[in-house]
C-alpha cells in the first residue's frame, strides 16, 4: 500500500501516456471528436497510526505485509468500529478498503477465539478473492483461525465443518437468504458469537437487489437477537451521492460515514471522445465499437496494459476478436488480449486475473464483471466503449487504471444513445455532479411479503412484533387467510410444507420465469427470461438473441412457461409492439407548475403485445411485421407523470399528429434523463402516454376498438407516465417527482444541443418513429413549460 519507486519501464510509460494523449488531441481526424480532456494531478497519501486498541500481534501481521501505517480513512473507520458504531467507508477503487474490516475482525478474533464474522459480497467471484486475501493474512499470523467461503459451490461434506468452525464465513446475500438463515439452528456458533457483519460493494445494493437485502438483514438481525448477539456492520461503498442514507436504509440503524480518502492518487488524464457524425440528417455517427478499437490500439501498440470495458457480452466478444486479429500475429503473442465476462469459468477467470497482475496479458476486454474489487493489479489505460449508465460505475471503471502510482489515462467513447450523447457533450455535468443516488424500497409489498414468509419460517413471530419498521399483524392476518401462517397463543407460525426462500430470488421482484429451450439439435435449455419480458422477447416468430446467436421462436408455451427456439441465421431482428393502458388509482401528490402539472401516485397498467416488427441489422430498415394474440398483462405500480394541459396543447401551431409526435419525442428524451438521474437500469422504468380527456369520451368502447383507434385520435391533454417497471414499485417515482425540474431542464438541454436536424436516436428518437416535426414540437413544449 506504500509508495513504490518507479521502475525504469514505468518511468518510460509515464512519459508516454501524456505523449499519446497529446497525439490524440493533435491528430487532425480526431480533433473534432475529443470533446474534453481532464487532467488530474497526483495526490499524496495521508497517513495515520494504527489505533491504540489494536493488538500488537495484529499490527505486526500487517507490518509483515509491508503496512507500517494506515491511510487516514482506514484509521478513522477502524476507530469508529472499535467505538461500537456501524460504519460506511466511501473511497475510490484501490484505496485499501478491505483493511477497514480485516483489522477489527482479526483483532477481536485474536482477543477471543469464539468471535465470528460474516462477510457479504455481491458475487461469488469477489467472495473468493477476498477470502484469498484474508486467508493469506491468517497464514502469516500462524494462528488457528478458520476462514471459509460458503456458497452454492461449497461441497456438501465441507459444509458441516464450516458451520461449526468457521471464524469468518464469506458468502453472498443470496446464499445467506436461501442457505444459511433458514437453517440457522445448524449455525448456532455463528449466530451466538457474531460480532461483525461486513457488507462490501454497498453501492450495488440498490433498486430491487437492495430492497431485498434490507429484508434479508432484518431476518439476520432477528436471528441474532434470538441467539443473543448484536453484530456491528462495516460497509464499504464506491462513491455514490447518498452512501450514508443508503446504508441507513439497508441497516435501519445509525451509521457513521467515513469519506475522507487518505490513499494516494496517481496522475491521470480523462478523455471524452464522441465518434464523428457520418450522416447529419439522420444523426448517425461512426460505430463506437470501431472507434474504441482504433483508440485502444494507440495504447496497446505501445505496450501499455489496457482494460477495455464494454456494456454487453456481445460487444466484449467483438472487441476481443478485433484485437486478436490485429495484435496476435505470432505464437509468442498468443493470448496477449483476453476477454472477461460473466459466463467464463472460474478457473479461466483466475488465470486471466493472474496474467494481468503479472503483466503477461497486455489487454483485457471486460464487462462490468471487472468493475468490482477483483484484484487485477495496476493497469495503465482504461477505455470505455459506451457510457456505463452511471457516474459511480464510470469512476469504478476509471479506477482500474493507475491504481497507485505512475501516470494513467482513461477514455470514454460515446455511442449514439441519448444518455451517452448527453454525457459526452456535457463533461461539466459529469465532473460537477455528485454521483447518483442509491434508492431502495424494502417495503415494496411483493418483496416484503416474501421475506415475511421466510422470516416466520425461520422463527415464529410474536404478535405485535415488528419487522424492521413494519408492523406485521395485519400482514400476517393476510397470510393467514392464504393459509401460510397460523396463530397459536400469541405467536404466528409457518404452516406450509414449502421452503419459502426457494421461491424468492433476490435479483428480481417475482421469481416466475420462462425457460428458453433450443431444439436445434437436441433439446437444451439455453437461458431463462423473466415473466414481464417474456411476452416481448420470446413471443412466437420473434428472433431471440443469445450469446451473439440468433434463434427463431417456434412456440411459446404459456402454461409450461417454456419457449421453444431454433438456431437461424437471419439479417433482421424483431421488436414487439405493445399497447398499454394506464389508469390512475390514486394520486399521492400533484403540483401545478408554470404551464404543466407534475404528479406521482399509484397506477394500474394493462399491457398487451399486439404485434411485432422485423428490423434489418445495420440499416435498421423496417422489413416486415406480424400480428400476435397474447394475454393482457396487468400490473399495479407507482408512477411519476407530467400532465400537459389542453390549453397548452392547443397553442401549438401544428397538426394533431405532429403534436402527438412531439409529446412522444419529449417522453423518449425524458425517460433517458430519468434513468441518468435515478441511477437505475434502463429497464427499471417504463414509459406510457395517456390522454386525460379521451377516457370520458371513449368509455363505452371496447378495449380492442380503442387500441385500434388511438392512433388516429387527437390528443387533447396528454399525460407522460414514467413508471416503476415492477409490481408495487421499487421507490423510484417519488424521487423522480422531486427531481422533476432537473429532468425537464436537462431534457431541454439534451434536445437543444443535439446536432441532428429533425430528431435522431440520441434525442427524441429516430425520425421515422415520431414524425418529422417531433424535435421542433418537443422543444416548443419545453419552452412553454420551463
Amino acid at each position, binding site marked *: 500500500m506504500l509508495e513504490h519507486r518507479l521502475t525504469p519501464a514505468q518511468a518510460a510509460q509515464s512519459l508516454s501516456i501524456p505523449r499519446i494523449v497529446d497525439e490524440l488531441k493533435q491528430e487532425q481526424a480526431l480533433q473534432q471528436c475529443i470533446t474534453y480532456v481532464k487532467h488530474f494531478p497526483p495526490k499524496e497519501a495521508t497517513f495515520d497510526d494504527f489505533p491504540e486498541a489494536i493488538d500488537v500481534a495484529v499490527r505486526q501481521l500487517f507490518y509483515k505485509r509491508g503496512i507500517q501505517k494506515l491511510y487516514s480513512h482506514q484509521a478513522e473507520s477502524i476507530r469508529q468500529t472499535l467505538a461500537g458504531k456501524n460504519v460506511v467507508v466511501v473511497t475510490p477503487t484501490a484505496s485499501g478498503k478491505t483493511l477497514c474490516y480485516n483489522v477489527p475482525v482479526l483483532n477481536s478474533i485474536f482477543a477471543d477465539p469464539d468471535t465470528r464474522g460474516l462477510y457479504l459480497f455481491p458475487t461469488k467471484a469477489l467472495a473468493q478473492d477476498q477470502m484469498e486475501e484474508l486467508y493469506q493474512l491468517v497464514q502469516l499470523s500462524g494462528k488457528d483461525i478458520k476462514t471459509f467461503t460458503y456458497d452454492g459451490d461449497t461441497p456438501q461434506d465441507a459444509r458441516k465443518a464450516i458451520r461449526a468452525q468457521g471464524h469468518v464465513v464469506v458468502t453472498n446475500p443470496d446464499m445467506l437468504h436461501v442457505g444459511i438463515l433458514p437453517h440457522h439452528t445448524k449455525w448456532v456458533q455463528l449466530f451466538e458469537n457474531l460480532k461483525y457483519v461486513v457488507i462490501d460493494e454497498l453501492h450495488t445494493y440498490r433498486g430491487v437487489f437492495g430492497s431485498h437485502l434490507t429484508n434479508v438483514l432484518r431476518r439476520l438481525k432477528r436471528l441474532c437477537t434470538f441467539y443473543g448477539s448484536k453484530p456491528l456492520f462495516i460497509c464499504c461503498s464506491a462513491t455514490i451521492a447518498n452512501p450514508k442514507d443508503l446504508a441507513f436504509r439497508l441497516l435501519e440503524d445509525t451509521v457513521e460515514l467515513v469519506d475522507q480518502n487518505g490513499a494516494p492518487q496517481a496522475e491521470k488524464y480523462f478523455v471524452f471522445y464522441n465518434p464523428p457524425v457520418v450522416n447529419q440528417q439522420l444523426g448517425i455517427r461512426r460505430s463506437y465499437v470501431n472507434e474504441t478499437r482504433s483508440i485502444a490500439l494507440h495504447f496497446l501498440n505501445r505496450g501499455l496494459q489496457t482494460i477495455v470495458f464494454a456494456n454487453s457480452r456481445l460487444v466484449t466478444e467483438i472487441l476481443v476478436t478485433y484485437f486478436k486479429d490485429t495484435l496476435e500475429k505470432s505464437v509468442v503473442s498468443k493470448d496477449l488480449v483476453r476477454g472477461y465476462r460473466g459466463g467464463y469459468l472460474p478457473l479461466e477467470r483466475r488465470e486471466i486475473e493472474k496474467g494481468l497482475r503479472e503483466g503477461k496479458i497486455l489487454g483485457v476486454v471486460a464487462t462490468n464483471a471487472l468493475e468490482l474489487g477483483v484484484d487485477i493489479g495496476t493497469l495503465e489505460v482504461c477505455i470505455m466503449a459506451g457510457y456505463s449508465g452511471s457516474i459511480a460505475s464510470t469512476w469504478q471503471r476509471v479506477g482500474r487504471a493507475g491504481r497507485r502510482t505512475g501516470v494513467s489515462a482513461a477514455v470514454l467513447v460515446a455511442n449514439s444513445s441519448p444518455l451517452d450523447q448527453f454525457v459526452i457533450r456535457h463533461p461539466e455535468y459529469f465532473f460537477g455532479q455528485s454521483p447518483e443516488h442509491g434508492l431502495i424500497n424494502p417495503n415494496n409489498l411483493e418483496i416484503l411479503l416474501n421475506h415475511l414468509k421466510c422470516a416466520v419460517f425461520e422463527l415464529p413471530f410474536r404478535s405485535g412484533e415488528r419487522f424492521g419498521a413494519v408492523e406485521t399483524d395485519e400482514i400476517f392476518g*393476510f397470510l393467514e387467510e392464504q393459509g401460510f401462517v397460523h396463530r397459536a*397463543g400469541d*405467536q404466528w*407460525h409457518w404452516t*406450509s410444507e414449502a*421452503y*419459502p426462500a426457494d421461491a424468492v430470488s433476490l435479483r428480481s421482484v417475482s421469481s*416466475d420465469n420462462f425457460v428458453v429451450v433450443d431444439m436445434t439439435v437436441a433439446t437444451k435449455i439455453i437461458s431463462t427470461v423473466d415473466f414481464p419480458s417474456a411476452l416481448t422477447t420470446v413471443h412466437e416468430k420473434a428472433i431471440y438473441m443469445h450469446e451473439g446467436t440468433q434463434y427463431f421462436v417456434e412456440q411459446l408455451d404459456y402454461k409450461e412457461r417454456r419457449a421453444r427456439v431454433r438456431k437461424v441465421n437471419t439479417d433482421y431482428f424483431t421488436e414487439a409492439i405493445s399497447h398499454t393502458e394506464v389508469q390512475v388509482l390514486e394520486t399521492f401528490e400533484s403540483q401545478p407548475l408554470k404551464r404543466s402539472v407534475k404528479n406521482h401516485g399509484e397506477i394500474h397498467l394493462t399491457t398487451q403485445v399486439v404485434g411485432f416488427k422485423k428490423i434489418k441489422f445495420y440499416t435498421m430498415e423496417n422489413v416486415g411485421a406480424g400480428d400476435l394474440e397474447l394475454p393482457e398483462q396487468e400490473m399495479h405500480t407507482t408512477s411519476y407523470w407530467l400532465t400537459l394541459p389542453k390549453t397548452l396543447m392547443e397553442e401549438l401551431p401544428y397538426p394533431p399528429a405532429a403534436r402527438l409526435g412531439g409529446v412522444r419525442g419529449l417522453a423518449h428524451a425524458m425517460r433517458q434523463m430519468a434513468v441518468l438521474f435515478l441511477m437505475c437500469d434502463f429497464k427499471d422504468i417504463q414509459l406510457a402516454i395517456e390522454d386525460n380527456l379521451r377516457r370520458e369520451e371513449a368509455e363505452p368502447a371496447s378495449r380492442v376498438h380503442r387500441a385500434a383507434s388511438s392512433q388516429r385520435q387527437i390528443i387533447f391533454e396528454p399525460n407522460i407516465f414514467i413508471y416503476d417497471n415492477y*409490481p408495487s414499485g421499487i421507490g423510484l417515482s417519488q424521487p423522480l417527482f422531486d427531481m422533476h425540474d432537473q429532468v425537464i431542464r436537462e431534457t431541454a438541454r439534451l434536445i437543444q444541443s443535439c446536432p441532428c436536424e429533425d430528431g435522431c436516436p440520441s434525442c427524441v428518437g429516430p425520425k421515422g418513429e415520431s414524425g418529422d416535426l417531433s424535435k421542433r414540437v418537443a422543444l416548443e413544449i419545453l419552452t412553454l413549460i420551463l
Partner: protein
Amino acid sequence: MALTERLHRQLETHRKNRELLMQAANELSLVDQSQAGSSFGSGSQAGPLTETGPQGVPERFDLLRDRSEAQGRLPRSIALDLARLRTRQQLRSENSIKEVAGEESESDLGGEIRTTAVGPFLYLSEFYQQSHLEYAPEAGVSFQRWVCSLIKLLLGKPIDCELSQIGFIDTETTGLSGGTGAYAFLVGIGSWQPAGFLVEQFFMRDFDEEGALLSALEERLGQLQVLITFNGKCFDLPLLASRFVLHRRSWPLNHNTHLDLLHPARRLWKLRLRDCSLGNLEKQVLGVERENDIPGHLIPQVYFHYARSGKPAALRAVLQHNRQDIRSLAELTLVVSRILLGLASEDDLATEDLFGAARYLELLGQRQRSLQFAEEVLVRGAPPSLKVQVLGELAEICRSARNYSRAVTLWREMINAAPTFQAEACENLAIHYEHRAKDFTRAVEFVDYAIRLLEGQGHTEKLDRWLHRRARLQHKIARTSY
C-alpha cells in the same frame, strides 16, 4: 403517508391483483387455480395438494372472502366478471365443505393432557400384546440379545442395555424440505415393556404446545440407551435437534447409540423390491396390510387443518399411521437381526434376499457366513437374471479368500451360464492359469476364445490387449518348451 397505512392499502391492492389474475387465468383456461397464484410470485407455496380433497377448502374460502371484500372497490366490468365467477366458486366450495363435514364427527383424540413446566401437551399410549412376530414376554431377553448383537455387527460397537432402554422413534412433521420451518408435531416412541410392546405418542394440539412436547420428550429420551429409526439419521433426528435449538434446550441424545435401519434394509432388499420405503417393506417383508391408511404426503395438510379447525377426524388416521410405522420398525429390526445374525432359517428367505444378505455380510467382514449364503443361492438355482452376478461376486469372494480352485470353477460356470461374452471371467481365468497355475497352454485357450468372440462381434478396438497377452503367452510357451 404512514407506513402502516400505506401497507394496508397495498395489501388491498394485492388482494385485488390476485383476483385479476385468477380471473384472467380462469377465462383463458391457461393455468389451473393452484398455479394462478404462482405467476404472481406469492401464492405458489400451497403445493401440489390444493386440488385434492379437503386441503383446497381454506384456499377456496379465501377466494370467497377476498371477492366479497374487494368487490366494492373494483371497476364495474371487473365486478361483473367477479360476480359471475363467484357463483361458480361458491358452488364448488359448498360441495367441498359438505364433503369435509360428512367426515367429521365430534370426538376427541383420546390420550391424556400432561402438564409440564412450559405448558400442556397431549400424551397418548397404546399397548400391543400381540405382534406379528408373536411377541411373548419370555422371549424379551432374546430380543435384547438380538438387538445388541445387531448393533455390534452393524456399528462395530459393543452395547449392553435393558430391553426397555431400546426405543423406536418416528416423527410426523409439517414438511419434508428441511429448514427451521418444519415442525415435528407428533413424536412416537416404541419400546418393549414387560406387558407388551408400548407405543407412546407426544403430540402438540397446536403450535404453542411445542415447548411442552419437547420438554417431555427430553425426559423420555433421557431414559433410552439405544435409538432405532428408519431414515432418522438424515431426517427425524436432525429435525428434532433443530426444534430443541429453537427452544434453547440442550439436545438429549448426545450419548445414545443410534441405529438407522434404512441402510441395512436397502442392502438386504433392494435387489428384490427396489422400493425400500418402510411402507413397502412392511407390506412385502412383514406382510402387513394397512386399512384406511393416510398417504404420507397428506399428513402436513391434515395437521394444518386440525390446528386451524380443531376437528380431529383425519388426524386420528395420522396417529394410527405413526403407531403402525413404529410397530413395523420394531418388527423389521427383528427380521434384520434374524437374517444377519443367522437366526433365520434360510428356507424362509427369498433367493434375492439371501444374495443381498451375502453381499452385506461380506461388506461387514463376515466372510464365512457370506460364503455360506452365496453358496446356498447357487444350490437353490439362482434366477437367471441373478445367476451370473452371483457367480461373479462369489468367485470374487473366493479369490479374496484365496480359494482359487473354487473361484476357477465359478468363473468357468459363469462363462457357461451367461448368454453373453464374459470378458472379465475370461480374463480372470487367463490370469489365473498364466500367473498362478503356470499352465500357459490353458491360459492361451481362454485368450483364443476371447479373441474369437470379440472378432465375431466386431469389437476390434478391444482386441489389442488380448493379442498382446497371447503374444506374451506364446513367448513363454516357446521358452518353456526348450
